[in-house]
């Protein structure tokens, strides 16, 4: 009787364990379970004067040769 009970419950347990498994068809670049893809790319910023200015501000970069009179 016990054997029959175990054999009867086993398929049920398997169903419970595997419940929710499915092929991941999402376009998640980090793989299943990873972070969602973002909309950021290199050129999204480096190809945009506006984005770069927003990120880097109006900081001036001193070109050292201008100051090294004789170096």
């Amino acid at each position: 009787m016990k054997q029959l009970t175990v054999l009867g419950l086993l398929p049920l347990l398997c169903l419970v364990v595997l419940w929710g498994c499915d092929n991941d068809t999402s376009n998640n670049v980090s793989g299943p379970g990873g972070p969602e893809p973002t909309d950021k790319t290199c050129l999204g910023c480096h190809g945009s004067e506006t984005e770069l200015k927003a990120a880097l501000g109006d900081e001036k970069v001193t070109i050292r040769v201008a100051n090294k009179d004789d170096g």
Partner: protein
Amino acid sequence: MPELDAWEKVFIDDNSNGNGFLNSIHGPNYEGADNPTPHALSCQHCHGGGDDNTFNTMEEAHTDMIRDPSEIGVTGCTKCHNGENAFRSACDACHHVETVDSTINSLHTNLWGEKKSIEDRCGRDFDSLGVDEFFDAKCASCHTTCGQCHISRPNSVGGGFPKIGSYYSHSFKATPDMNEQCTACHGSRIGHDFKGEAEGNVADVHRSPNAMKCQACHSAEEIHGDGQYTGDHYEHRYEVATMPRCENCHQDDLDSGFGHIHHTGQDPDCGNCHHNGGTSCDACHDGGGAFAFTYPLPTMQCQVCHSQPYKNCTNCHNLVSGGKYEIEPSTLQLKIAQNPSPHREEYDFSLVRHTPISEGTYDDWNLDLPEYTSKSTWQYTSPHNILTNTPQTTVESGQSCTASCHGSPDGVNGYLLRESDLYEADGTTKLEDYDANFPYVIRDDFPATKELKK
């Protein structure tokens, strides 16, 4: 060179300006069929960092980013160009492998010349000095990589993309841009002279009106290292076999004209001008009744006559507090001396530029210079401000043709490097580098005795 805004240094323009990086052979939009497919590269292929669409912040995007993939020892370009999957170096595609090998061992890349100067004054092999860390921190900012000449501005001016015309460009250029790349490093003397920016000077005749750029004289072979050294590598730029020579283009000029013949070691053949009825010149010019001839006369570097005044430092490389070096303003002078260069021994006389170095320059490296005086600080120089006619070649009507140089007064504005130039302004205190330079001064009684250091 104008300052760049931070954003300008890293702006990848679209394709509308003719620089077209995005569609270029390394660009992400490349569609050409002349390379293995796919060859369209993302930024990350060369520069690493975060993959597109995986980052949100600038910091995340730049994690593990490679700023200069062409730097030796960095696996940016060599990730693909490793000799197995693709040609060994990113440069090999267009350039022979010999060029790449030479570059790796070149003066440009290794600063062998700087190291040799330190070796000479220390009297020891550079590798035994244990100063690599200091050298890298203070001197090596001038070494270069493929990318700093062919893609970006060099690090020594803060990097960033060159501005070609009105646009910034990440493009790969076989020939560097003179203003944005060559004179970005070689600007304070070479570029300054070549463009005639010194007060009272005009542009080099090769620049204006002839509009020549650096590569007109300086070959790719020379710049990348021609590999024709003896030993392990070149130790000075004046050693390089393919260094440009004036006579490469001007041999005909060199062989003609009184001045050229007299100053380049050629026999002037007196009879060409002086018809003496068959009497030997030496019959009278015996050193008694008249001065004796000692032909050939000493040889002179072309620039002695054809350069304009150039920058000479007065007190460079004095170590001041915090490990900083003090650089005082230069003076514009032209000085002729007995040639101090061991690499260009064909000239008895050459121009010299004062590049003083203090005996305590490397105190903060704990490095003494026991051989400090073994190397002159008035050094052989070849200013890039050439003119056909200069004050040295010009005299007032009725004056002797030797008046301008041979009659040049002593002092700061005189053409000849005299012993008096090796003293402080008080005229009695010897400068620190007196002993290093004394062998090369033109003696007070020259040219009467024609005494040479040799």
